[in-house]
């Protein structure tokens, strides 16, 4: 009987306590915000969309290797000695044309592992987080500034250069080795098979 009455009392009393708590909260200002109108300031370290400053990229492929989900694809073509590729902002001399620098942002897991190894700090995470698209294709970002024609030209230039070099080498070798067999020239296309 005592337990019965206690149960009744507990039931009513704890309900009243709970009601007191929720009633107090009626007058507490809301903690939520009206998102698209009001936005929370992001901290300076915020990790959102990746950005590549292609002017600083030296094509070292470190970020591609660091990526755990393989969302970065880079192709490079060696520059000719006569080309002026310029220098990066921290003074490194560029030697490669970055013919392709694609980030599939749909695959990106925002771990920022690619950011740390970059020698020129040209790949970094920005605070842009609203970039949804209707098509997945649109989420593949190409950061390379070279047009397809230019890319083609660079490749041809390089092949020509290599062919000339090989020819010169072969010629030199042929001249040099009168009796001995000349070494077969290195296939210049070997490194560029992938780039398409």
């Amino acid at each position, binding site marked *: 009987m005592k337990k019965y009455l206690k149960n009744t009392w507990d039931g009513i009393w704890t309900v009243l306590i709970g009601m007191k*708590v929720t009633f107090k909260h009626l007058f507490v200002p809301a*903690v939520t915000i009206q998102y698209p109108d009001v936005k929370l300031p992001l901290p300076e370290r915020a990790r959102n969309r990746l950005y590549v400053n292609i002017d600083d990229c030296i094509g070292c492929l470190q970020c591609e290797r660091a990526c755990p989900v393989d969302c970065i694809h880079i192709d490079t073509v060696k520059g000719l000695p006569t080309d002026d590729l310029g220098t990066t902002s921290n003074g490194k001399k560029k030697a490669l044309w970055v013919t392709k620098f694609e980030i599939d942002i749909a695959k990106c897991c925002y771990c920022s592992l690619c950011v740390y190894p970059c020698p020129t700090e040209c790949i970094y995470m920005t605070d842009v987080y609203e970039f949804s698209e209707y098509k997945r294709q649109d989420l593949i970002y190409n950061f390379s500034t070279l047009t397809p024609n230019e890319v083609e030209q660079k490749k041809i230039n390089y092949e020509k250069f290599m062919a000339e070099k090989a020819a010169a080498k072969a010629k030199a070798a042929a001249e040099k080795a009168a009796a001995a067999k000349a070494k077969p020239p290195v296939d210049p296309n070997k490194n560029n098979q992938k780039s398409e």
Partner: protein
Amino acid sequence: MYDILTNIFGNQIVAYIIGAALPLFVWILPFVLFAVLGERKVSAHMQDRLGPMRVGYHGILQTVADLLKLLQKEDIVTPAADRKLFNLAPYIVFLGSYAAFAAIPFSSIYIGSGIEVGIFYILAVSSFVVVGILMGGWASDNKYSLLGAMRSAAQIVSYEIPTAIVVLTLVMLTGTLNLNTISQQQTAYFWNWNILGGAAGSGITQILLIPFMVIAFVILFISTLAEVNRTPFDIPEAESELVAGFHTEYSGMKFAMFFLSEYANMFAVSAIVVTLFFGGYQSPFGYLGNSLGIPWLIPVEQLFWFLAKGVFFVFVQMWLRWTLPRLRVDQLMTVCWKYLIPYAVFNLLIVGIISLL
């Protein structure tokens, strides 16, 4: 009331139809629009949120937008469903809750039907809801719906008993089943309300009655909560267990009908509580119309007080809903049979003894 309408329309039948439809269009639909938003706003502010803010100023048109969306929705009937019952169920549920409004006195001049057995009629007719819920749950051909419907039937049938006992207590005191008469008895000032022992009349009995009337009120309020399937008694639609209970398979306007009847029901039971314990349409402080000498103002004031009290109890229902966890199905029965009914019976006896003094 009907005389006025008959005069306006010149035909008694038209007048009756309009009189019957009046609460639906004048009060229930606007109330539901307002209450659904109110529920969302109340819950949001209790949870430190803002709630709907987009449609209109602070989201006041949110329910209208929802309604438009529901109207446009495809009316899905699952292939295995029992089509006839499935389609009929939402209307029966709404019928059950709307029929109760016939006997509720909104004001001294407006009462749908001033029948002598008003409260008895309401108790009887609100059982219609069970039929609709059972039909919906069964016809959906969904195990979750069926479980929800079975629970609901058991629950509503059980909780009618404490309701009836408490109503009996009140009827014993007031000597009438007519809700209009009960309201008239609690006239003028709030110390005449039944919750403060007003019905018994005078002196020491009135003071003695107060605690027991409070107990009766609490029991009635709890059991009406259960009858409208609100938290903590919302197990027929317990979303964490049964997805959405008996209306899992409903979509579009039929779902909206269930929604409409739930909110209509909330107001109906609040109205019953108000009528029985809180003076019905009577003002707590006397009427402005009396002091100013404008007789036609009195019914308007009465309507205002009635709706205000009703809305307050709807708010309390919402407040409870956003505070409490849900009971389990067997505990629900325990609360009803082991706690509410014994207390109600004892209360009935004690009130009877006191009123004999």
